[in-house]
């Protein structure tokens, strides 16, 4: 009954979905890498960015992608402020635990403000190319999904080059790997961590915009995303951006393919099964990232 065409179509959809997951999860793994912060509010910032994209589209008629010009710097600044003003004040001994509480509160505040500003009405950006699609060997590829994938690829590549090829990237990675040693060689780890956090939040601006292109959004939508994203970064190895990207692709593809023989409920469960398997058999993650071993 299952045709080759359906399988191929599902592979295509799975890869596109995986790309989006990778983008949405990249910031989350970065925060953890930099300062062992579990950032529950990451998905709330994603939805905030999505709302800003929707709002600038409805209010000014500009393409949602243009909102990135404003939201990326804005989110970077917000990230620096958040890290310097709040998270860096938490006591190192209880940082990971307390960051959950603190960012949980931030998530609830963002959700409340979104509901206050835009009401609970579910919104969707109406795009002229919202349902446009290309044909590839019989499979259909939605233009908006392709754009989201492109955004993900561009953002992740930039992040990768930034971490690997720039002095700031070296400083950031040094801070991730060994803060004390980094300080000894003269790195201002506090400043670096603040900027790193800002970059994480900037990925949320890109991710939220990509999400808004092809999703109906509402203030409480972030609770739906935080679980799968957390699962992705654990499977990928906490703190590893390439690991998170690889885990996201694998899980997106698996979810899409499982949808064929099973149903949506079981296809969604793949995240939690992967999380369970990772914690049971390979707590440091399946795709690099040795951070978890240190805890």
């Amino acid at each position, binding site marked *: 009954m299952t045709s080759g065409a359906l399988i191929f179509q599902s592979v295509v959809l799975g890869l596109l979905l995986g790309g989006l997951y990778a983008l949405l999860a990249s910031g989350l793994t970065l925060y953890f890498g930099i300062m062992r912060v579990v950032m529950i509010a990451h998905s709330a910032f994603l939805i905030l960015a999505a709302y800003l994209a929707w709002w600038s589209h409805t209010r000014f008629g500009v393409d949602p992608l243009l909102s990135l010009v404003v939201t990326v710097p804005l989110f970077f600044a917000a990230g620096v402020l958040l890290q310097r003003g709040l998270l860096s004040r938490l006591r190192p001994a209880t940082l990971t635990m307390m960051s959950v509480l603190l960012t949980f509160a931030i998530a609830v505040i963002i959700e409340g403000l979104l509901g206050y500003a835009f009401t609970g009405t579910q919104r969707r950006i109406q795009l002229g190319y919202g349902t446009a699609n290309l044909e590839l060997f019989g499979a259909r590829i939605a233009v908006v999904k392709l754009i989201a994938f492109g955004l993900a690829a561009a953002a992740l590549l930039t992040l990768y080059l930034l971490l690997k090829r720039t002095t700031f990237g070296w400083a950031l990675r040094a801070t991730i790997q060994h803060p004390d040693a980094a300080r000894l060689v003269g790195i201002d780890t506090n400043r670096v961590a603040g900027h790193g956090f800002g970059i994480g939040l900037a990925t949320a601006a890109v991710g939220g915009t990509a999400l808004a292109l092809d*999703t109906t959004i509402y203030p409480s939508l972030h609770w739906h995303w935080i679980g799968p994203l957390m699962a992705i970064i654990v499977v990928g190895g906490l703190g590893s951006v390439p690991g998170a990207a690889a885990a996201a692709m694998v899980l997106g593809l698996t979810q899409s393919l499982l949808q064929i023989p099973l149903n949506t409920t079981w296809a969604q469960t793949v995240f939690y099964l992967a999380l369970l398997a990772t914690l049971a058999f390979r707590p440091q993650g399946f795709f690099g990232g040795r951070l978890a071993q240190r805890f």
Partner: protein
Amino acid sequence: MSTRLTKKRWATALGATVATLALAACSGGEQGSASTDDPIVVGISLPLTGDFSEPGKGVQRGYQAWAKIVNEKGGLLGRPVELKILDDQSNADRVVSDYEQLIGQDQVDVVVGPFSTRLVVPAARVAEEYGMLFVEPAGAAKEVFEQGFKNLFYAAPAVANDHYNHLAEYILGLPAGQRPTTAAYAAMDDPFAQGTAYGLKEKLEAGGIRTVVDEVYPPNTTEFSGIAAKIASSKADIVVGGSQYQDGVNLIVALQQLAYQPKLAAFSTAPTSPEFAAAIGNKTEGILAPTGYTQQAPYPSNVEFVEKYTTQFGTPPEEDEANAYTTGQVVAAAITAVGCAEQGDCQRKLIEWVRGNTVETVVGPLSWDATGKPKGAHMIQQWVGGEIQIVLPGDAKEADIVYPKPAW
């Protein structure tokens, strides 16, 4: 769950005891007939705070509009109508004591129902213990009609499983060459949303239309490309969505992205939302949806209702308001026909009258089966020419149904 059930049982037992005592206390007293200028007091308990406060307030506005319109015309049996509304705080235990207070202590003349299925059942039980007529504006789930109530009537055109009846009849009535042969269903795992789609599925399957996709998704699903891929790959002639809002919209867009072109697409709830066109723009053409109430429905009392409601509250009424108004209309029709409105034997006559008659309302003529389930079906609306218009049934239509639907 079991504790809640136990609690409910206790509440019922307690309710029964109180009822017995109250009856015993009353039987000695005189059941004197009310004088002509005494108001007819209508007792209602509504969730004005808590989880259901939004729809609860809508229902309240509907009742208020009904009382105002009735009183402007001189009331019922020459007596003015007065509402006595208590706040049950969306709490099922509270609703029981509210109705006991209304009936036993406040001696209201008639009671009407609260909001939400969860509250309708305990409230109806109290009303039944006192032998009161119980017309209710909410509670479309099938459990309501499985309790064996003899006094309950749901004042809306249809329960979830019957929403698509007019469409089923239309599809099965098509000539053999045009009739679809395969259908795909996707429904949210929710008794209401799934009930609508499965109601149609059952009838179409019985009529020989083969089900090629049958997907059920959890309520929090937002990613629909997988389901859409299955439906598109099945090339089903028609697609039916048992949806609420965001799931319906996301599924429709996902299907369009895969260039799937069915002959007919029907989705519950989403297409009738004012936000729908804002979300998917000009890609709405031909999409069908069942609707329990529309401001455009041509029934005479509806024209009056929409006009006067809008003057009173500033915005036109929605479904919750209309259901409450309909409830009022049913009770008013019974009171006028029977010629009495008080507790006691009069209530039995009111119940008998409602069971045996058809009432003209803002949602069309209503009549009920023995369990209090309405015998009607929902109107079917379709997006035609950039507007959502009634296409079925024939006697209420604003536009002709377009089948097969244009490409989206």
